[in-house]
């Protein structure tokens, strides 16, 4: 199976790879997937005044999973929390030209975004 140029580019030059400290103020962390399924994504956002000012990821998974999470961090930066909620896995599929067998990678990325947003909200409410 051939990968699209965009997947290869994200895989070779991942954007925003790394981690924030989970406890840090304004940081939301989403971790989805499971090692036995062959995919685990950790996606983190840093929020100031309801806007995502930075995002980072770490992913265990195939090239498409890595590319999906890398792309997600790129898209998240600069978005408001409300805008971020609207990112759909189908947008990722389209942007990366993912074949049918790789759609689950984009689903996982959407789940990771939602999980990071929920984590941020929970932390904000508990403050």
């Amino acid at each position, binding site marked *: 199976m051939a990968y699209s140029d965009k997947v290869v580019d994200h895989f070779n030059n*991942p954007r925003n790879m790394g981690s924030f400290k989970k406890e840090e103020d304004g940081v939301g962390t989403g971790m989805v997937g*499971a*090692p036995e399924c*062959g*995919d*685990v*994504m950790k996606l983190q956002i840093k929020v100031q005044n309801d806007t995502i000012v930075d995002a980072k990821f770490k992913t265990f998974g195939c090239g498409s999973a890595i590319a999906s999470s890398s792309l997600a961090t790129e898209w998240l930066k600069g978005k408001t929390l409300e805008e971020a909620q609207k990112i759909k896995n189908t947008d990722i599929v389209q942007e990366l030209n993912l074949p049918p067998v790789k759609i689950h990678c984009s689903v996982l990325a959407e789940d990771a975004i939602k999980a990071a947003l929920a984590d941020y909200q929970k932390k904000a409410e508990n403050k």
Partner: protein
Amino acid sequence: MKFPIFLDNHSTTPMDPRVLEAMLPYFVEKFGNAASRNHAFGWEAEEAVETARKQIARLIKADPKEIVFTSGATESDNLALKGVLEMYKEKGNHIITSATEHRAVLDTTKSLEAKGLTTVTYLPVDKQGMVNPQDVRNAITDKTILISVMLANNEIGTVNPVQEIGKIAKEKGVLFHCDATQGVGKIPVDVQAMGIDLMSFSAHKIYGPKGVGALYVRKKNPRVRIAAQIDGGGHERGMRSGTLPVPLIVGFGKACEICEQEMAAESAHLSNMRDRLQAGIMAALEESYLNGHPTHRLPGNLNISFAYVEGESLLMGMKEIALSSGSACTSATLEPSYVLRALGVGTELAHSSIRFGLGRFNTEEEIDYTIKKVIEIVTKLREMSPLYEMAKEGVDLKSVQWAAH
């Protein structure tokens, strides 16, 4: 060095130029049908086929008359299992095989089971992928007509104790089929000493052409009979009809002849390169685990799991090296290698496995390049892996509640 480097010699092998040379006259000039009994074209083709039959039989210590040509090992496996089951149905319908067989065997037994034609015992293997002959003995019932155990595994290279299994089969009067596709030409095979009654193998795994294989069918002690699965002109003593592909058979014969002459030197060379690859990688990368048997394995095989990184992404990071992974990220089921699972390798480590298949034309320079590249990409992907990060922080990954999808 030429790129890409081919390190996937269990999937197929490049044809040896000497094989091609032997085949060439049989396309245009000597094109006869080996079954044409009445003219020189036919005689010439028949003679070439009989020469190849001898070369092939010699490699496995069989009689040339015991070689039945097929389209490849998959067909041979099918013919052996279905042919025996149909021929010996009065005697019983129980087959014993193992969990790590190639799908050409497992899918055949499953399809026969689904049709209600047989009951099958799938023997487990040990942690290194080996079938225990004692398990074979214990599984035999008065309905058992066939034992089918592979010589060497295509993923992990583990070589089974075939000789002991053959002995048990003889003692119990049960036929023994061996799928020897990965073993023939790589390690010594002797159908007499090993007590094998039927054996499947093919040309393209041993530097011969694709599209031709053989089924060895024992002629005496006992005389094995199989029901043909393809009807027609009664070729191959009625066991497999169809015009013989003379150029392919000539190539198959030549490939066997070369293997026989060069096996000792080639196997030593491959083992050396494999050991160098293994040592180079495993010394540099913590938490890399060898899959399969440390010593009873094919000379050119190496299978390693790299904890915390996924196999397909490893392959993607080494595009200039042709390799294979036990990860199943592209399969619809998301199930990783059933062979590694049968060894008790955890699912996550099965996803992280890479199979290196070394062959006749690999060089030490290529091996050294591969070592460097593997270390580089595993290190890079571990940096990217949340699992590696957690493990480094001291989190026990097994204690984490994962949101499985």
